[in-house]
């Protein structure tokens, strides 16, 4: 399989007042197309920061992140925004759905940035919602859905643009066991049947076991 993500000697630090707080120390990691990678580690180990850097929502202090032969660490904000809309699907721990929009409208959101017609958008949204088994809950608002259903809407939103990579930050962290299992099954399905490259941050070893391989982070270092 071809190399899709190359994280090269990446360091990241934050500033708290006048103190520099290192989060990632000279990390290098490669991910191939179709991989399902789990990132594990204790709180503060830098796993979410690494995920954010790969997803292009944060920038490294040092090093390069090359995705599909594009060095995204050199992109400016608007280039990154455009790149994200085409290449990345996000799944968050707390779903992050827009409460005033229905499930359908939430899933349609990323498509508003494309040139697709209304009918084409409808086709994509319905496909994505059916894929996550929510074809019958399209016009429900987030508050009318269970946590597991909300997360499935979030997954539908993440895949509706057919992105290259899906990044998931603790996707089962806020769910009961049954719902968590459903979400993990969906991720596996996306990886196996739809050949999506998935990077997932998790604390849960059971969730990590669904991935092809797991990398551990501790205090900003890969161990």
């Amino acid at each position, binding site marked *: 399989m071809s190399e899709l993500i190359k994280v090269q000697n990446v360091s990241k630090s934050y500033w708290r007042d006048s103190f520099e707080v290192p989060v990632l120390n000279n990390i290098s990691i490669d991910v191939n197309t179709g991989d399902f990678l789990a990132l594990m580690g204790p709180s503060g180990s830098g796993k979410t920061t690494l995920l954010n850097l790969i997803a292009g929502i*944060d920038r490294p202090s040092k090093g390069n992140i090359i995705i599909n032969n594009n060095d995204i660490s050199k992109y400016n904000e*608007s280039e990154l925004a455009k790149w*994200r809309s085409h290449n990345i699907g996000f799944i968050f721990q707390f779903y992050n759905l827009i409460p005033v*929009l229905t499930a359908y409208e939430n899933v349609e*959101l990323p498509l*508003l*940035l494309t040139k697709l017609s209304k009918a084409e958008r409808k086709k994509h949204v319905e496909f994505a919602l059916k894929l996550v088994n929510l074809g019958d809950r399209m016009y429900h608002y987030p508050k009318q859905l269970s946590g597991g259903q909300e997360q499935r809407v979030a997954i539908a939103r993440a895949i509706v643009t057919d992105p290259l990579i899906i990044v998931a930050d603790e996707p089962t962290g806020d769910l009961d066991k049954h719902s968590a299992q459903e979400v993990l099954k969906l991720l596996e399905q996306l990886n196996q049947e739809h050949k999506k490259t998935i990077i997932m941050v998790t604390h849960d070893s059971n969730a990590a076991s669904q991935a092809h391989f797991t990398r551990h982070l501790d205090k900003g270092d890969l161990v």
Partner: protein
Amino acid sequence: MKVLKIIFKNAFRHKLRTLLTIVGIAIAVIAFNMLQTVVTAWYYGLEASSNNRLITRQAVSFIFPLPYAYKDKIANVEGVENVTFSTWFQGVYIDKDQFFTRVAIEPETFFDVYPEFLLSKEEHETFLKERNSCVIGRDIAKQYNLKIGDIMTIDGDIYPGRWDFIVRGIYQPKFESTDAMQMFFHWQYVNERMIVEAPPRANEVGWYSVKIKDPDKAAVISNKIDKLFANSNAETKTETERAFVQNFISASSAIITSMNVMSFIIVGIIMLVLGNTMIMSARERTREYAVLKTLGFSGKHLIGLILGESFVISAFGAGLGLFLTIPIVEGFAQAIPKSYFPVFKLEDITLILSISSAFIVGLLASIFPIQRALTTKIVDGFRHIG
């Protein structure tokens, strides 16, 4: 789903808060429009003033009279077409709350110098013939249900005694700005009684109104008139009617200025009300803006969403305010005596000012939330607890 739909959904996410903000804006718009309408009504007298009329008054003060004998001298000044005079009579009609202008005039010349008071030929002729007759404005006739032949009794104060006048004419205003709440009667009728009852006050007039041929020569003619009476016991001050009216208005300039200032303070209040709502909304949605940015929405999209929401709320508030202003102004115009504000109506300029103020307020109120949404990093946005 269109972006406009998201804007509307966001604007009415907290229905009570948005409703209160809209009502707040509407009340402020009504207050702004009312104050501006009062200010413009105040200046209506200026609009009604003619540019081919001069007013000659006593140089010391308007309250001091001028000799009747000045009339012919003024009429002989080069450039003067006609001269008339008036005397402030005041008095009480029914009771002291019934205020309207009552002046003694020279009927032969008055309606030529003031053609904006439209009187039929027949009524004018009857008025000329009967010394104790009067002409009243359309609005006085309407307010007191008066008709030709009725008697109006005035209880004199400046000119003491009981004064009975027979209504012989009802004039119509030529322009919208013409005051239709005035009462005119013969100066001679008053003067004859002064000759008998108060001889020192006889043969005096309040002021002269001078019709000139060329408005461009107003300054020259004014100088000529005043020179005629220089160093006399009653020196004159002649000025254009506009300047004369402006002097009256300037006496109330502090009130008008404070009304103007207040109306714009109200615009500031609208901005604070809407700004507060927008800041609260934007703070609550910090996380959502981070989500939208993550999905690929650019700064331009966020500006559109926040600005659009601010405009929607300000437009609803301004719309409601304008909708309510019209009947309120009309009701106010009905309730206050016509003599206070002969013309009290919502001007186009007031509407334009309030609409553009609401537009500017919508724009300004969104600046801080936009700045916050744009500068907050995505990762910081996700950490935010709204």
